[in-house]
């Protein structure tokens, strides 16, 4: 299956509900592309459901969620696969396969979809792991490593398939300042050398947000609104 380039993302009259609580109502929104966008939520429930909808883990209730003009909720798992391979999702905490080592967790999508051959895969893994210095933990299962290493693996797994679009759910969580800086470096490197174009993330850390965000998207009163960020204020970690 070939990856499909992601040119545009749009909501048309979208209504989303989670356990009878409405999150979006008749929302029209064009997502800004080729930027690092912070999405600001009022609570974790909104965040959880929003990301799950964006990655097609759950369906939207009403309206259209268009990627490149195609309404993706109409697509089957196989039909959406081309888009999915261009999308990376970094879970906030859970999501690692507990019966596999961190290395197997990272290699799984690459092996499953045959994205790299043997030697390429080894080199690529080495490049990725370098950012978070995971060498010692790589051959251990998630239960045997620190939550910090688990979090690093969750983030790396979002990047491992060289996606164009990435959703990162509180990526700075449990990371030291040094590792946060490495993450920012990784995003920059992926933009420059690989396919990464669009980054959507959420965070409760204003400093981290200031370092990364080009634009803020705020979910308020069941609508999404864009708010420009003053880039002059951008700081380095």
């Amino acid at each position: 299956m070939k990856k499909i380039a992601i040119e545009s993302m749009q909501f048309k009259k979208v209504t989303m509900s989670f356990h009878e609580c409405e999150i979006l109502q008749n929302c029209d929104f064009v997502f800004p592309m080729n930027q690092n966008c912070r999405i600001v939520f009022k609570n974790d429930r909104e965040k959880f459901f929003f990301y799950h909808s964006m990655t097609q883990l759950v369906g939207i209730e009403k309206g259209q969620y268009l990627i490149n003009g195609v309404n993706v909720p109409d697509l089957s798992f196989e039909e959406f696969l081309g888009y999915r391979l261009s999308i990376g999702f970094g879970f906030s905490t859970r999501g690692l396969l507990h019966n596999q080592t961190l290395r197997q967790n990272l290699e799984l999508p690459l092996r499953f979809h045959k994205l790299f051959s043997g030697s390429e895969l080894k080199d690529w893994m080495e490049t990725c792991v370098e950012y978070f210095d995971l060498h010692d933990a790589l051959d251990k299962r998630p239960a045997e490593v620190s939550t910090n290493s688990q979090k690093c693996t969750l983030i790396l797994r979002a990047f491992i398939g060289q996606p164009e679009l990435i959703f990162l759910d509180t990526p700075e969580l449990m990371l030291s300042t040094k590792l946060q800086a490495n993450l920012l470096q990784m995003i920059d490197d992926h933009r420059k050398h690989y396919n990464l174009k669009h980054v959507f993330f959420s965070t409760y850390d204003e400093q981290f947000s200031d370092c990364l965000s080009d634009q803020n998207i705020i979910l308020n009163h069941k609508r999404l609104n864009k708010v420009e960020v003053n880039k002059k204020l951008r700081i380095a970690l």
Partner: protein
Amino acid sequence: MIAVVDRLGQKVFENFNYSWKLFLMTYLSFRSALVGRNQGWRTLYGVVSAQIYFTGWQAMPLIVFLAAGTGAIISLQAVMQMTFLGGVDAIGQFMVMIVLREVGPLLTALIVVARSGTAVASELGSMQVNKEMDALRTMGINPLSYVIFPRIVGGVISVLCLAFYFVLFAALAGATVCRVIKGMPFDVYFTSISQAADFGDVFVFFLKNMIGGLIIFSVCCHQGMQVERSPHEIPQVTTKAVVNSTVYILGFYMFLTCYYYLEYVTSIGLPL
């Protein structure tokens, strides 16, 4: 009275609905694994092998012990009763009738339900809670083809092999008992068995164990996937998996026995 009929109707409807969901999940898992050709077969092969190792290989000592015990007890009882009634030579027919047709598949299925069915249901349940299924989907891996399909295939192969070994070791134990108690030579015992078993018995044996394995692992996978958010749901679905798969297995085996062997009796002109 109407309320009782209503409740009964509702139960029947619920059971049909449940069976339909099981069928659909099994069909979709096979479809996604066999039709979605973009996936790596080697990855699936690894999961199938692991399932065969856990369900089949690790259960072997228990199956051998249970088969030997069951075979010894059945042949002991058979020899004792047949000594009173005469016709100890018919021991082969008795062993085929009891072990190959009924006890072998049934005990194997119950052992697999207790050992591996519970393991699969709770494993899948905890995968749901830990968002591992969601993680697989975000990686473009369909859990139906990566998680469910290999478990069902590995489970069916394991049940088939375990049932074969059960029958083999039960027969060996029976031969030993006959030898020790009645001094029956091994060749007489095994000739009696081979003469008693026909193609129909072997066919029904394969059918029972294959469909039995399919039922056990479909039910247990389905129950595991029913966990939504909280770990407290895991023991609940595990219990349901055991109960439901036992009921389905007994129902299916009873249906098959009635259909095949009663049909056979009436086809040769004997009254029931």
